[in-house]
């Protein structure tokens, strides 16, 4: 029984691997803080693993006066961004907190936006949150369901053969007439033929199902792999992968659009200790080739994460690893920056401060030492001078109060987060301007950020438990400085 079951069903229930997610790596959930008219909202969107599928939405309001929230899914750009379906109402939590939850269908892969309409005593407001949606995995059938369906399949098959036999044995006889040898033999023959036919049909159905599963697997989003080579004079050349099927879907492969005035944000992290960190901005040489003059870099193996945003609004993080010799390099220029932290082997996961290289320190205002995965929260960092006084002279770094990178130490999770949240600024620009106009690379800069003060904060939630390193970049006295923190995240 078990063997037969697996023969028919197991090939269909293959668990397809999932390791890749667009815009960040292994961190599919969207966290965003913004204003819907007079109401400040913290939005968490958890996209589905299969597309079409249901995304879960949670919205927390800064005040409890908010009466109603409605959500609508639209494409981020193109004709699908023009007409909105009927909005869904979010359910307000029964307790006193201003928390709302709900869900909505995302029917296609690509770049979406969830439009949130708020209503309260201070009037109405609207906020759009970009959401990249990709099919990430197919599902294994639960054992009890597989066994149940297999039993039903056997029952239906045997039943069909028996009914065919009955129809030929007795179905054409007048009432009261017993079947003769001819009818019995004919029925047996046709029952055998039906059994063969059923077996052949099920065999063909198995092939059909396999074919559908394989087609679905081909459409699963795979983490794009960069090709990185070191040219003479310490120049790093990066070649983007062929988008293949995804180009046809008009999701990737189309021209890139700038995010903070840069087509690519490159993050270089030294392995295995993650103690050196660079945030660089390579130049586009050809449509799929980027190049960067490296700064001074010690020899070693490096992990590369490269953030880009396609014209469709769909963001991607491309990855690769590279072995580099010592590179004397060129001084950092423009928006390029670097950071240094403790080697991972010496990490202190209870420490809440990080020394900054120009003096002073960055303090993580943690509410608690224990952090849980899949829980949205604010990560607040205060900058102090050498005397321990909070500073209020933070400058915009690429238009923002700060940039944060959340990196799981096994590198299965990478997220580049801004004070407004996880969506790239170029996506946010499309929600405001639509597809017909040029996106503003600095869209909503400062909108999600209070006036630059002493604290820079980021909304985020760790997607899975484990050990993480957080790189927080701010700009002060004309220089970008990086605080490095370590944390252990529980279930």
């Amino acid at each position, binding site marked *: 029984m078990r063997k037969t079951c697996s023969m028919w069903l197991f090939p269909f229930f293959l668990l397809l691997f999932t390791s890749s997610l667009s815009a960040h790596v292994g961190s599919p959930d969207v966290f965003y803080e913004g204003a819907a008219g007079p109401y400040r909202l913290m939005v968490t969107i958890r996209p589905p693993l299969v597309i079409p599928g249901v995304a879960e939405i949670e919205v927390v309001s800064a005040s409890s006066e908010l009466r109603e929230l409605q959500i609508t899914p639209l494409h981020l750009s193109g004709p699908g961004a023009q007409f909105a379906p009927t909005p869904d109402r979010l359910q307000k939590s029964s307790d006193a907190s201003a928390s709302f939850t709900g869900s909505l269908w995302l029917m296609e892969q690509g770049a979406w936006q969830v439009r949130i309409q708020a209503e309260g005593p201070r009037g109405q407001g609207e906020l759009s949150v970009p959401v990249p949606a990709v099919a990430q995995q197919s599902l294994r059938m639960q054992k009890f369901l597989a066994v149940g369906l297999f039993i039903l399949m056997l029952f239906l098959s045997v*039943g069909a053969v028996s009914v065919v036999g*009955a129809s030929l044995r007795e179905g054409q006889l007048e*009432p009261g007439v017993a079947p003769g040898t001819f009818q019995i033999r004919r029925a047996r023959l046709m029952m055998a033929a039906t059994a063969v036919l059923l077996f052949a049909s099920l065999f063909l159905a198995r092939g059909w199902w396999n074919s559908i599963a394989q087609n679905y697997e081909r459409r699963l989003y795979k983490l794009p792999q960069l090709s990185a080579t070191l040219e003479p004079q310490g120049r790093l050349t990066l070649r983007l992968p062929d988008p293949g099927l995804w180009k046809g879907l008009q999701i990737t492969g189309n021209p890139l659009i700038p995010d903070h005035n840069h087509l690519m944000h490159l993050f270089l992290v030294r392995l295995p200790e993650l103690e050196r960190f660079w945030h660089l901005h390579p130049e586009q040489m050809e449509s799929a080739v980027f190049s960067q003059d490296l700064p001074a870099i010690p020899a070693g193996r490096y992990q590369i994460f490269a953030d880009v945003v396609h014209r469709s609004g769909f963001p991607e993080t491309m990855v690769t690893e590279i072995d580099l010799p010592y590179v004397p390099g060129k001084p950092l220029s423009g928006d390029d920056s670097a950071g240094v932290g403790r080697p991972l082997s010496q990490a202190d996961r209870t420490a809440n401060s990080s020394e900054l290289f120009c003096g002073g320190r960055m303090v993580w205002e943690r509410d608690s030492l224990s952090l849980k995965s899949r829980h949205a929260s604010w990560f607040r960092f205060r900058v102090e001078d050498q005397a321990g006084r909070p500073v209020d002279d933070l400058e915009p770094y690429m238009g923002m109060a700060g940039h944060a990178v959340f990196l799981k130490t096994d590198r299965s999770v990478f997220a580049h987060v801004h004070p407004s949240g996880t969506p790239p600024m170029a996506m946010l620009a499309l929600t405001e301007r639509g597809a017909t106009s040029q996106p503003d690379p600095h869209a909503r800069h400062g909108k999600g950020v209070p006036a630059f003060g002493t604290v820079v904060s980021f909304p985020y939630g760790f997607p899975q438990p484990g050990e993480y390193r957080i790189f927080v970049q701010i700009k002060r006295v004309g220089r970008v400085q990086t605080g490095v923190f370590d944390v252990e995240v529980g279930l």
Partner: protein
Amino acid sequence: MVDTTAVSIDRLLGTKTRPAAEVRVVPWYIWCGVIAVSSSIIGGYWDISWHRSIGRDTFWTPAHVAIYLCGLLAGISSAYLILSVSLGKRHAAKESCVKVWGFHGPLGSFMSAWGGIAMLTSAPFDNWWHSAYGLDVEIVSPPHVLLIGGILAVQLGVLILILGCMNRTEGVSASRLSALFLYVGAMMVLLLQLLIMEYTWRGLLHSARAYRVISLAIPVVLIGVARAAKRRWATTIVTAIYTFFLLGQLWILPLFPAEPKLGPVYQKVTHLIPWDFPLLLLVPAVALDLLAPRVASWAAWTQAILFGSVFLITLVAVEWPVADFMMTPAARNWFFGAHYLEYNFHPSWKPYEFFRIERTPSDFWSGMAVALACAILSTRLGLAWSEWMQRVRR
């Protein structure tokens, strides 16, 4: 002649005592079957409209309830009939039935019960399918084929239940049963139309593929049911019911307001979007009914060649220019409904242009040759099926 099955079973159930030839009431289990197949077809087309207009659904939408009501009603009524006969002590009732796994019942009730179980099996399968591969946007998927196979089995079972009575009954009762038989046959054609609708959309009606699919699916039922009914104009009646049903959904569904609940929305929709204007199967049906009495004595294969050819030629002759007409502004009104576009009809698609499936004339004509072969083969199967059905007694 006496309707022994109906009488025996009805006696057992305590509802009738008179011979069927005198009985003017159709047995309750046949009505249950007729209601079940009607429910599935209404639910099926309603569900298609729901997906074209509103998009999002759950298991408990009215359309889904109507579909699964078919399985439930057919399954329960058949099971009751089978258990009543099997557990009853009336020997005569058992002698009027077939025997499967020790249970006695009319042949049609076993088929309907099988169909009902298949339909109900498809529900958790379809639910899992959505979870694994996403909400389906295609009609033809393995769980849907199981569902449609289940409905077909219920329909076949009801046909056989009616036949079991009809083949042993005369007079008014036989005439009523014959009308119900043709009605269920029309429901079967509507179900097959639903299965092949992705291939027979108006934009595809200048392709050989559409005619190949129609020729394969439709004649077997049309010919089979019409011949087994042994009634003049039977094919015409079946296709008239088919046409009436599809015109009904075309004219009635848009009267109900509806708005998309899924994105992306490419077309503004304010009411339920029905399926297209029906295929003009009525024309080949009339031709077949005119021919049938003249060639009744011909060999089966000769009849199949003639009927299959006539079916395809008359269908193409009428459908080709009508498809041309459906692309014109004159067809964009409530009567023809060519202006109804589902909410997710992409602006780059062209609703009033034909899709060229075959790239060369040679591909087209070879496709049409295959369509002719399909029509002949399907007709021959229909003839064989009708011969078998005419001999059904239990």
